[in-house]
């Protein structure tokens, strides 16, 4: 994010609408398909605006190497990665960079909360998120897709989490920032939620927000959850019809 307005900062709000014509609290179109990869125990393909994300789950299987196994519960391994061709900008080096390592960690922690790890002592569950095309909000898209992938694998979860970001342009709180908004906004706050009690499973933020603005962002995130959760459940139902 570019703080305090770079020299060539584009207007993020024109005539009360966002750069892509959305209302402040409006999600981009989301499409989810469950169970599309044959080899994985569970998988999902998700399009969220111009983001295209694949998620797959392998396991539970014996934890490797053995010394990392937890005799009391399953461990989760998670890798989030952006394809080198995924952005409109230059080709990026493949392999996880520091940003991807951090996102992998916080994504893993979301699923450590909801998966019933005690059911699978000594084993590991692998979650892979591959961002094929990126347009802002890829960690949220990845978590939302991975949740469908885990659910479609049959691994028991307390809840099917979803994620979405909120942010700020000027004094307006915006839902679901796209890439341009992400780059030039005054704050960005990705959140993952357990819909059954609205608990926060992931929260990151940078920029500038007052407590009241955090509250307004939270309201938008929870409201959006109704839509996202329904799309996730519809995708799972379609898979088993």
């Amino acid at each position, binding site marked *: 994010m570019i703080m305090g307005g770079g020299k060539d900062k584009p207007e993020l709000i024109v005539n009360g609408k966002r750069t892509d014509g959305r209302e402040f609290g409006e999600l981009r179109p989301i499409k989810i398909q469950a169970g599309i990869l044959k080899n994985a125990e569970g998988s999902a393909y998700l399009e969220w605006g111009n983001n295209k994300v694949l998620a797959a789950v392998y396991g539970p299987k014996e934890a490797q190497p053995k010394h990392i196994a937890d005799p009391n519960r399953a461990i989760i391994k998670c890798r989030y990665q952006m394809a080198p061709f995924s952005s409109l900008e*230059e080709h990026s080096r493949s392999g996880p960079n520091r940003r991807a390592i*951090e996102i992998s960690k916080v994504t893993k922690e979301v699923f450590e909360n909801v998966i019933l790890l005690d059911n699978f002592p000594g084993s590991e569950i692998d979650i892979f998120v591959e961002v094929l095309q990126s347009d802002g909000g890829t960690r949220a898209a990845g978590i939302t897709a991975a949740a469908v992938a885990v659910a479609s694998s049959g691994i028991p979860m307390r809840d099917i989490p979803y994620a979405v970001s909120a942010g700020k342009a000027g004094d307006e709180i915006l839902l679901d920032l796209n890439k341009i908004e992400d780059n030039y906004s005054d704050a960005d706050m990705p959140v993952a939620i357990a819909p059954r009690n609205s608990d926060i499973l992931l929260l990151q933020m940078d920029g500038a927000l007052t407590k009241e603005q955090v509250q307004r962002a939270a309201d938008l995130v929870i409201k959006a959850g109704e839509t996202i959760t329904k799309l996730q459940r519809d995708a799972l139902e379609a898979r088993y019809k």
Partner: protein
Amino acid sequence: MMAENEEYILEMLGKGMREHERDHMDYRDIKIEINTIPHAEGSATVDIGNTKVLVGVKLGVGDPLPDKPNEGALVTGAELLPLANAEYETGPPSPEAIEFARVVDRGIRAAGVVDTDALFIEKDKVWTAFVDIYVLNYDGNLFDAGTLAATTALLTARMPKIEGEEIIREGNLGKLKTNGTVTSCTFAKVGKTILLDPNANEERIMAGRLTIANDEKVVRAMQKGLSGSFSFKELTDLIDATFDKSKLLRDRMKQAMGE
């Protein structure tokens, strides 16, 4: 298996108590010393209880970032040194170290502590401020100690100058241009209890961690860590607590800088 002292901590928390008779929303003793590594352009050593963190700031000349051709760069790294804790290992930075560095970085960046515009030299030539966080002794709450040390080191750093081909790092130099200040408050969730400034024993049993970085006016960065969850009510209450507790951190910082 839970170690004995961890069971003891849980038992005490059940009675509303905490090690060393600390209240749930109290910091341990905080000590800040500036210029502990005079060779670095800026440096500070921060103790929070038995946690000890050193930050050294160096400035170097290099290329601008491709998407920011008209400003200097800020690069933050963190080392969880093996001498700081029996559980730290040598090798490339762990996800924990990377998260730590990136959370400190986001707070500093969002609060505008480093004026990156002022680090522009000429076309294709800018200063980069390297902020290296060295954990010397681990006893919990690295995030707050790291943010305090990094901010203090930056606020007290001198600005090298270029004369011809040479970088002058000593002598009569001005200060690094800064535009803000930031501190962070980190909370641990242990069972249903929320503790400010968790020590190592408390961190070993915490389910979730929440760090809120702020300046005098707004929240600048937040990061929830680990598998435990927080409610939005807890979040907004802890934002209030952060604005309250950060006054102490800013006071300690000002004292250390002789203000």
